[in-house]
Each structure stands twice: as C-alpha cells, then as structure tokens.
C-alpha cells in the first residue's frame, strides 16, 4: 500500500517553507551584491526541494521508473539552462 505521511510532517514542512519565505524576503533588504541572487536561488531551491520531496511525495515513491522520470525532467532542465548559459557567458572570452 502507499505510504501515508502524517499531518505533522506536512505542518512541519509548511512552517519551514513560511520561515524560508520570510528569510528570503528579509535578506533582500541587505545589499549583498552579486551574492544576493545566489542566496535567493539557494533558498528557493531548498523550498522547492521540500515541496517536491514531501508535498509531492517524491521521497516516498516506491516505483523506480517514476523516480527516473522525475530525475530525467530536472536533468533535461539542467542541460537547457547550464549549456545555454555556458555559451552566453564564454562568448566574451575570445
């Protein structure tokens, strides 16, 4: 049978997401230069991971093919973003 996750887990994840939202909003007031976007994206990725792992049950999926589908999706997204940006960023080097 499917794994049933307790309401306590959902409320904990929700509290973490709310705290991280307040954190990312608060640090946007600080001038961290180029690091501010890096920090904002790190926090967003932590939040996104919590959503995918717990709310979307990715942590509890027992069908390996489904995990493969999920990982392939994000892997393809990484190819799109990283390879295109590696082109743009290195154009000025010549």
């Amino acid at each position, binding site marked *: *049978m*499917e794994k*049933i*996750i*307790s*309401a306590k887990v*959902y*409320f904990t*994840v*929700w509290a973490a*997401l*709310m705290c991280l*939202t307040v954190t*990312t*909003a608060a640090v*946007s*007031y*600080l*001038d*961290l230069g180029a690091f*501010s*976007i890096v920090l*904002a*994206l790190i*926090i*967003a990725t932590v*939040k*996104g991971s919590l*959503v*995918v792992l*717990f*709310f*979307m*049950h990715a942590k509890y*999926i*027992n*069908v390996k*093919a*489904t995990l493969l*589908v*999920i990982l*392939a*999706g*994000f892997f*393809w*997204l990484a190819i*799109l*973003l990283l390879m*295109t*940006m590696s082109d*743009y*960023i290195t154009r000025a080097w010549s």
Partner: protein
Amino acid sequence: MSNSSEALATHELRHHFENMEQQSGASSMGMWVFLVTEIMFFGGMFMAYLAYRYEYFVAWQEGSQHMDFWIGTVNTAVLICSSLTMALAVLAIQQGRRRLTSIMLSITICFAIAFLVLKGIEYHRHWLAHEFPGSAFHFAGVDPRHVEMFFVLYFVMTGFHALHVLIGIGLVSTILYMNQRGHFSADYHNPVENAGLYWHFVDLVWIYLYPLLYLIGHHHAG
C-alpha cells in the same frame, strides 16, 4: 453519499492492472510525465529570463525595483498555505475522511482565488503606471527598451503561471465535485493525488518566480 459504494465500483481496479498498487503507481507516473513537459514549458521561459538578465543586467535591476514586493511576498505565503491544505486534502482521502477532504479542497480553492485577486491588483497597478509592454509603455529611468523586455518576461511568466492557477481552480473544483458525489475513498483516490501533484507544481514554479522577479533588485530601492 449513500450510494457511495455503488459509485466506487465503477472506479475499482481496471482490468489491465494487476492490483490497486500497480494502478496507482502507473497513475502517478503518468502525472509526472505530464509535469516533466510542464518543467520544459516553464524552463524555456526561465532560460530566456536568464539569458536576458545576463545581457541586460542593469535593466533587470531597474525593472525588479518596480515590482510590488509586498504583494509578491504575500502571494508566496498564500500559495504555500494552499499547498499545505492540498496536501492535507490528499491525506484526508487516504484515510477515507471525505468530509475533511472536501473542506481542505474548498480552502485550497479560496487561497487560489485570493492569489489571483492579488495578482489582478498588481497587474492593474502596472497597467496604470504604463509598465505594460507596448506602445503605451513608458519608463523614465535608464535603458527603457530593455526594462520593457523585463516586463515582457514578467507578464509572460506570471501570466502563464496565473493561467495554471486558474486551471488548478477548475481542476480542484472538479475533484471537489467528484468527492461530494462519493467517487473517492481510502482505496481509490488517484485523481485527488494527481490534482495535488499539479497544484504543488504550480507552487514550485512560483517559488522560483518570486526571487527572480521580485527580489533581485529589491535592496536598491531601500
């Protein structure tokens, strides 16, 4: 819900599956395949955003300062709360608690409507401030042509996201209606789970839109 067992019978194990577990596994895998196409759909727009931000960094900072920081932040919280109620709706039907499921789905719809209302207020303000791209676009600061490009991406990305929220309201409403008709139980609730996956995905997209649009130039506004 008196004839619920009768309604349930039509949804029991389909003949091409071995058992309920295999059926529900196939169902969520199918939903994830669809969500991967959604990742690529939004991924293209994120790609455009990144490339333009790299080329026109100053314009991106300028444009971001004209976002409504508070509406963006409150809307982030609204979507996170809606994700919680959606997750609780799925939990409730896993436990066979139909009434609680309906309540949680209804709250989720309310949060979604609140999100769209706030988004609408925001769009209206941008419109009045001549920040909607096109012939009426006006920007007094530096590099107005590329600030306009920032607003193009802002409206396209948040517009498609808002469309997904709207579709989500329709989807969750349909699930709510079906639940009221007694279609789901502790044994069978794949559509509720899949609607949940869709809704959390919409939340996931916004989790990235929020810092990229609202926060990147915020500290300069002081």
